[in-house]
Structure formats: structure tokens, C-alpha cells
């Protein structure tokens, strides 16, 4: 039986965060990564950017082609892990092979949700999810002949897919069950700005409704909505989110809630077995409890923290929370933390909208700290706010300034500024001492 010191299941960003950290400290140990998809590590978040007739797979690679070789990693691709024996430290593959490990990371991601609706079946040739390279390739093949598309789901991925399809010249409709698009992700005001941007570009948005049924046989020919509206289509994209892939962990007896449960060292209930990314439930420092955060930076950072602990260097993941950078047509949006929370949840909310530039800012505050924020249009230097939020800095004394476009370090009171800028040596030692 083959054996690796470090074994990773899932070949995506969580795996890369782990591998890069392992190798910055440990050049000698053996590492292998098992990936069900047959591809070199690529970025699924790039799908909307490369929706085209010819998919440039090379451009979608997340790391260069020599990545595994350069970092001394054995890729086991096109193989699925089907069994895990945590007592024996053994993983079983779908071809019957077994691999034993020293430490294991589960970075199995999520599985796209397909709601139970009559006729909605991604086996049909023109109904597709939008989460994997294979989906993109399938949609791309259909594009030359498609005129009308319907997207189920008005979340980030659905809306990005809708915009990309619109830009390919298709007539696009988005169908969202909630009363507004992006309902759990942004506040109502931002939802309206986004809906307006789509409507201006003649993308139809149907909210508060869903498919009653999908029409057609082998090929979907259209959908009927619950309100009776009928939308003909030759392409149907299902983008209603993903659920954590926990089957392997659950069968192995690991503690699983919605996602695989991990402690702040990213270790699961089984010693030596770690989990990160879309498959795991991590501690959100603002919520004060664990939740699934299906976000790119969370997978990378979780993989990194797992690596430290796998190496025996104790590290906690204490900076996880929700964060999104997104753009729809001419709107750039950045949100982080509990950005949709409001006064009824016990927070103070300050906001400002400038109608001429359509720029909008909303800050959620409590106990002298930022708990969340939304920036629309004026997103430059947004990371400073994230920094203040993660560090739990007191902001009451300058809170009105948060709403100003030109916010920067010089807006922050001197003492705090010095504290924030010292870490990476922005200012000279002399200046720090003298300011």
C-alpha cells in the first residue's frame, strides 16, 4: 500500500493553501492530493470570466503546470476517494486502491443543489450547473445555437452567469425565489441597485417565484413559473448554491453538522484529520459560532491553518467571516462581515448613498467596532475596513469618516494608526517612534 505523510482529498484552493504552507516549512515529507476531476488545479471562480465558445483551460489554471512537480506533490487525479478509515489511517479510492496517510485534509468542497422540480434534470443536454469546468465546457458547446437562457438562482453565481450569457448575446431571464436578488448576501438597498443594473441591460429578473416545471423531453424547451409565466429557453442554468460534500466524513463517523465540524485548528473530531473550505464549518469570529463559509479566501486560509497544525505548529483560524468582492455590469461591490444586519438585530447602522455616482456605503457597528460593511462603486482600499474589523479596532471616534470616499490611514487617529502600520513596516522605526 502506498503511504504519504500528508494526504489531501480534493484538488482545489483549499488543497493549494495547505500544500503551499506545508512546503514553506517542510521540504522532505511526502504529499499527495486526490482529485476526482481529471484536471490540473484550476479555479472554478473563473467560470463566469471564460464563458465563451472556446474555453481556454490554460487560463483557468490556478497554479502553473509545473506546480505539483515543483512542490514535490503526487497528484492522483481522476480518482474519487470512496472510503476513509480514520483508525487505520487509510483512504480507499474508486478503483479499489488504498492509500495510507500520516495526516489527512478533507477539502472536498460542495455539491451543486438541484431542487426537486418536475423536468429539472441536469442529465438533459441543455440543463447545466455552473460550478465545474465540465459545466462550462458543456454550456460553451451549446452557446452557438442558443438564443434564450433561463438562470435559476439570483445569487452571486447565478447573476454572474446571467451577465456573462447576456454578453454573449443571449436573451436572459433570472428566476429567484426570494423577494429580491442576493437576499442573504447584501442588504435590500444594494439588491435594488443590482436589479436596476440588470434591468437597464435588459436582463429580465423574476423575484418571489420559481419554476413550477421544466418543459420538453430530452431537451428543455422552456419553463413555467409558479405565477404562471412561461419562459421559452434553449439553455437552462441551475445556480442555487452548493451543499458541503460531507458523505465521506459522515460515513467515517466524523462529527458533521451542515458541514464537517472542525475546531479552530481546523481539526475534525478524528485526530490527525483536518477539513477546510466549502465542506467544513468554521468558527466565524463575528458570529461567535461555526458556519459554512463557501468562499475562496476562506478555503485558502483554512488550508493554511490546517497545514500549520498538521506540521505540529499550533495555529488558530480566528479571522474567518463572510466576505465578497463582486461586480455586475458597472457596479463594483465589496461586502464583509455581518453586512446585512440591522438595527432590529441590535446594531447601529450608518449609511450614505450618492445618487449621482450611485455609490453607497453601509456600516454595521456595535461595541465600538465594525461588524460588517457594504461598499458599492467606491470600493478602493476596502481592505482597510476589513483590517479594522478583523483587529476589532475602536471606530466610534471617527465613524462618520467611514462613509467618506477618501478614507485612509490618515483618517484613523494617530495611536491606532501607528499600531496598524507597524506590522508590515509601512513607516520607518524612527517615524513610528516620533509620530
Amino acid at each position: 500500500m502506498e503511504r504519504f505523510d500528508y494526504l489531501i482529498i480534493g484538488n482545489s484552493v483549499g488543497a493549494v493553501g495547505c500544500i503551499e504552507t506545508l512546503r514553506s516549512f517542510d521540504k522532505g515529507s511526502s504529499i499527495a492530493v486526490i482529485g476526482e476531476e481529471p484536471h490540473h488545479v484550476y479555479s472554478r471562480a473563473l467560470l463566469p470570466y471564460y464563458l465563451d465558445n472556446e474555453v481556454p483551460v490554460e487560463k483557468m489554471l490556478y497554479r502553473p503546470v509545473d506546480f505539483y512537480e515543483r512542490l514535490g506533490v503526487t497528484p492522483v487525479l481522476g480518482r474519487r476517494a470512496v472510503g476513509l478509515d480514520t483508525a487505520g489511517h487509510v483512504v480507499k479510492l474508486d478503483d479499489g486502491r488504498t492509500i495510507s496517510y500520516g495526516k489527512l485534509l478533507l477539502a472536498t468542497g460542495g455539491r451543486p443543489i438541484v431542487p426537486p422540480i418536475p423536468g429539472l434534470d441536469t442529465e438533459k443536454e441543455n440543463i447545466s450547473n455552473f460550478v465545474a469546468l465540465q459545466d462550462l465546457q458543456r454550456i460553451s458547446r451549446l452557446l452557438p445555437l442558443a438564443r434564450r437562457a433561463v438562470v435559476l438562482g439570483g445569487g452571486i453565481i447565478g447573476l454572474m452567469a446571467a451577465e456573462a450569457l447576456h454578453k454573449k448575446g443571449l436573451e436572459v431571464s433570472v428566476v429567484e425565489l426570494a423577494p429580491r436578488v442576493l437576499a442573504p448576501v447584501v442588504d435590500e438597498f444594494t439588491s435594488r441597485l443590482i436589479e436596476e443594473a440588470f434591468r437597464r441591460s435588459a436582463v429580465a429578473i423574476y423575484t418571489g417565484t420559481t419554476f413550477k416545471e421544466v418543459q420538453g423531453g430530452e431537451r428543455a424547451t422552456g419553463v413555467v413559473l409558479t405565477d404562471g409565466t412561461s419562459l421559452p429557453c434553449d439553455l437552462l442554468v441551475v445556480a442555487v448554491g452548493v451543499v458541503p460534500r460531507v458523505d465521506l466524513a459522515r460515513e467515517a463517523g466524523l462529527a458533521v453538522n451542515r458541514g464537517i465540524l472542525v475546531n479552530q485548528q481546523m481539526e475534525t473530531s478524528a485526530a490527525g484529520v483536518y477539513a477546510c473550505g466549502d465542506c467544513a464549518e468554521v468558527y466565524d469570529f463575528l458570529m461567535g459560532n461555526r458556519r459554512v463559509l463557501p468562499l475562496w479566501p476562506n478555503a485558502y486560509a483554512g488550508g493554511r491553518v490546517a497545514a500549520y497544525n498538521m506540521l505540529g505548529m499550533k495555529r488558530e483560524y480566528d479571522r474567518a467571516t463572510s466576505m465578497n468582492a463582486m461586480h455586475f455590469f458597472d457596479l463594483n461591490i465589496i461586502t464583509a462581515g455581518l453586512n446585512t444586519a440591522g438595527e432590529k438585530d441590535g446594531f447601529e447602522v450608518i449609511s450614505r448613498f450618492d445618487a449621482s455616482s450611485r455609490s453607497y456605503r453601509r456600516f454595521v457597528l456595535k461595541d465600538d467596532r465594525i461588524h460588517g460593511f457594504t461598499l458599492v462603486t467606491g470600493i478602493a482600499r476596502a481592505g482597510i475596513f476589513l483590517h479594522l474589523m478583523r483587529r476589532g479596532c475602536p471606530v466610534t471616534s471617527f465613524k462618520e469618516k467611514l462613509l467618506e470616499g477618501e478614507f485612509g490611514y490618515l483618517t484613523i487617529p494617530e495611536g491606532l494608526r501607528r499600531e496598524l502600520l507597524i506590522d508590515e513596516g509601512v513607516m520607518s522605526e524612527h517615524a513610528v517612534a516620533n509620530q
Partner: protein
Amino acid sequence: MPRVVVKPEVCIGCHLCEVWCVVAHSRSKNILKAFLYETPRPVPRVVVEENLPFTLPVHCRHCSEPSCVEACISGALYRDPLTGRVEHDAGRCVGCYSCVMACPYGAVVMDEVNRKIARCDLCKEMGEPTCVKQCPNRALVYQDSFTS
């Protein structure tokens, strides 16, 4: 890891570092040509904050565990383990601005015309960074990281 360190107490807020940064990243490397004829003109990769009488130039810190790299969905941003520099491959950048969200220093500059980003690359092809060479009041120094 050497990077640009600021002495804000001697910065006079002349913004010449921004000007020379544009020149250094222009095609012609000539100040007149860069500003008169090159379109789109490169964006300055240093941000000079102003809250008069105070001014503060901010450059990418080439962090050891960069939040921008963690957030970058395309792999355009990466840390070179040999040099310690954080590099940006503009050809792979899709302009998602996740790095703008992530950078604690606000050191990622949005290049909206090209829908890309730009950060201080330490003028790595030219030895010492151009802004450091050109700062009239020596408010910028190119030096190794210090610990407080």
C-alpha cells in the same frame, strides 16, 4: 525582504512618487511621453494619502502571508518563495477586485480602464525603486523589513 519604507515626518506631499511610478511603468520610460502620449497611461502604484498637514505614501508591503494572495481567485497574485516578493501576473488577472477587499493596507490600486489591478513591484527590473530614487526629500527608503 527589502521594500519601500516611509518617513512620513519628512514627506512634503508633492506626489512626485506617483508621477515617477507612472513613468517607471510606462512604455517609453520618458516623463513627457508617458504623460502626453501614452493611453491608457499606467496607474501609479503608490497611494499618497492626504489629510493636511499630514501626508502618507503607502506601498505594497510584500507581506509574508499576503491576504491578497489568499483572496486572488485567478492565481495572478502569488508569493515567490525564493525572493519573498509578492508578484502579479497581469495576464491572468480578471479584475475581480478580491485583492482590493483583502489587502489590509489598501495597497492594491484599481486600474479600471484595463479592469486589472496594480501594486508596487519594487521596480524589480531597475534595481532601486524609482520613487525612492526620485523623492526630493528622501521620505522613502528601500530597506529590509524591520521588527519593532
